[in-house]
């Protein structure tokens, strides 16, 4: 019952935040310098052509009217038409979203699991070689410049060794082959996912490792760990059943928080690997002043962040009875 009330409260908060974001986004794009039409025209086009484009894109309307249309488009779930694609924005988003979700959630889950696992080990061997190697490794990969790392991985594993494709999400050889079934197509996607996933993983797992490590070290000082030890429990049980669940709580929060920050890295990774996701669409639509698409991409990301924060909160409540009850 308590949990339900808590979730309801959080959902109401999220809806309010979402509307603030909705409005801020609209203003941000309209006030930011740049003119969508100027970027679409070439010297063959006359003034008249440009004016027609403006009307066609709905940019001749006063700002207030544009905002109302924007709200209407949002509430009808339509989001308008992309300036460049001409397709309904919602179609484009739905087409790209699964790709981003696939890459992103896999990388977050993988890096969180591995980070927590390694952080646990590092804390257990505090001050030893294992710990130093892991800590330094985590710091290095976490702070490295992402596009650089991505290009290095491409250069080594895709170009020099030729183990993986340079970029993309699928290869035409497999998808054009009428005999290729679901399994080989799924494998093809996984095969293409290895490098972008590794990039995101390398960038993110270090943070989880470091958080888990310091959290573990704090937890190990707690009295209940002493109790557990006095009870004569095995070390493994103490570490995995008593220390780790408590120590993992801050990691769960940080997954939620880091999600918002890792969008940036996601967009870069998608761009470098030409992964057909929201992040890449976001980068290109912003640079081309494709307002409807860029707004929808931002909204989608804001939505994903808000919802995943909610999930994290609920998960936290589930993991920590002090919040649940």
């Amino acid at each position, binding site marked *: 019952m308590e949990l339900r009330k808590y979730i309801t409260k959080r959902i109401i908060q999220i809806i309010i935040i979402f509307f603030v974001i909705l409005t801020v986004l609209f203003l941000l794009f309209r006030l930011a310098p740049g003119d969508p039409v100027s970027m679409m025209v070439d010297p063959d086009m006359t003034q008249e052509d440009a004016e027609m484009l403006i009307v066609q894109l709905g940019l001749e309307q006063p700002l207030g009217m544009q905002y109302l249309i924007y709200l209407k488009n949002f509430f009808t779930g339509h989001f308008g038409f992309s300036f460049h694609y001409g397709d309904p924005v919602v179609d484009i988003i739905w087409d790209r979203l699964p790709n981003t979700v696939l890459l992103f959630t896999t990388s977050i889950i993988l890096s969180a699991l591995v980070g927590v696992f390694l952080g646990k080990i590092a804390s257990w061997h505090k001050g030893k070689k294992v710990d130093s190697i892991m800590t330094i490794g985590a710091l290095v990969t976490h702070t490295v410049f992402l596009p650089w790392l991505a290009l290095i991985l491409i250069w080594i594993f895709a170009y020099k060794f030729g183990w993986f494709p340079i970029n993309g999400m699928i290869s035409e050889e497999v998808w054009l082959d009428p005999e290729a079934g679901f399994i080989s197509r799924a494998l093809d996607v996984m095969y293409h996912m290895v490098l972008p996933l590794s990039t995101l993983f390398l960038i993110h797992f270090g943070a989880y490792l470091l958080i888990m490590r310091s959290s573990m070290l704090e937890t190990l000082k*707690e*009295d*209940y760990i002493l*109790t*557990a*030890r*006095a009870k*004569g429990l095995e070390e493994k049980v103490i570490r995995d059943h008593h220390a780790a*669940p408590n120590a993992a709580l801050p990691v769960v929060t940080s997954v939620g928080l880091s999600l918002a920050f890792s969008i940036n890295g996601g967009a870069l990774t998608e761009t470098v690997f030409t992964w057909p996701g929201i992040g890449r669409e976001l980068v290109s639509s912003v640079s081309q002043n494709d307002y409807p698409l860029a707004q929808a991409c931002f909204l989608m990301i804001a939505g994903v962040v808000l919802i995943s924060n909610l999930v994290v909160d609920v998960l936290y409540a589930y*993991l920590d009875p002090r919040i649940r009850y």
Partner: protein
Amino acid sequence: MALLEVDNLSIGYNTKKGYLKAVEKVSFDLEAGASLGFVGESGCGKTTIGMALMGLLPPNGSVKEGRILFEGKNTLEMTDEELRKIRWREMAMIFQAAMNALNPVQRVGNQIAEAILVHDPSVEKDQAMDQVENLFRLVGIPLDRLRDYPHQYSGGMKQRAVIAMALACRPKLIIADEPTTALDVIVQDQILGEIKELQKEFDLSIIFISHDISIVAHMCDHIGVMYAGQLVECGPREGVFESPAHPYTKALLSSFPTVTGKRSDLIPIPGETPNLVVPPHGCRFCDRCSGPEASCSTEPPQWVEIAPGHRALCCRC
């Protein structure tokens, strides 16, 4: 043979300032069913002794010399695994900070059952839970709180749960380190009463550690007074209280008009406890003693037998 024989035990910690001699040359015996209370200011080494008995010294702590014979076996020579197996099963501990001694993300009942299960693989989970129910009845926690989490308990209930946990494996020895410090006075009295009853009922040996001499007096039939890492006086309760020999014991007792009278906190004795990294060569209480002799600060004091079983570490006695 005594249940527990501690012989010439010295323990120290590696600290940034140097090797800190937390406990020095402490010897005592404990018979089955008997109770021994250690009393002294904080930092005098009484908790360190408790931890050493359990084999739970922190990583920077080490036993320098001495023996701990539990039922005739030296626990200091046991492997980690052997030690792990006698822990809780033979000797359990009620911790100083009972408030935090329970894992916040596990149900209280499960935490107690865990102790039973780990030491007796033949017990099924259900049986263990039945035993936990019995323990709850014993310490007076309502059975419907079995599946609660620690934060749902009051302070007194947590303390009772910790006691129940200590009793889970029917140990021969329980080390109770300040078990009631964080509780209010009424709950404190109830809990102490319960511990005493349980001791009788199960014929437990108890080592009771406290800075509060009145509690120790109330709980134990033998008393050990500790000062600056040394046991300075020990003997039967009556002997120590009626004819204290060591000036420190006297100073402690002077704060208490009667043994069973109104309790108050220890009145601080003027002066400071000595530095344990570089302890004084002579008597450690010398600087704060009311009537030291010239030799006190130069010669280490020797044990003096006051009465049978009652001795003190003072050259003036």
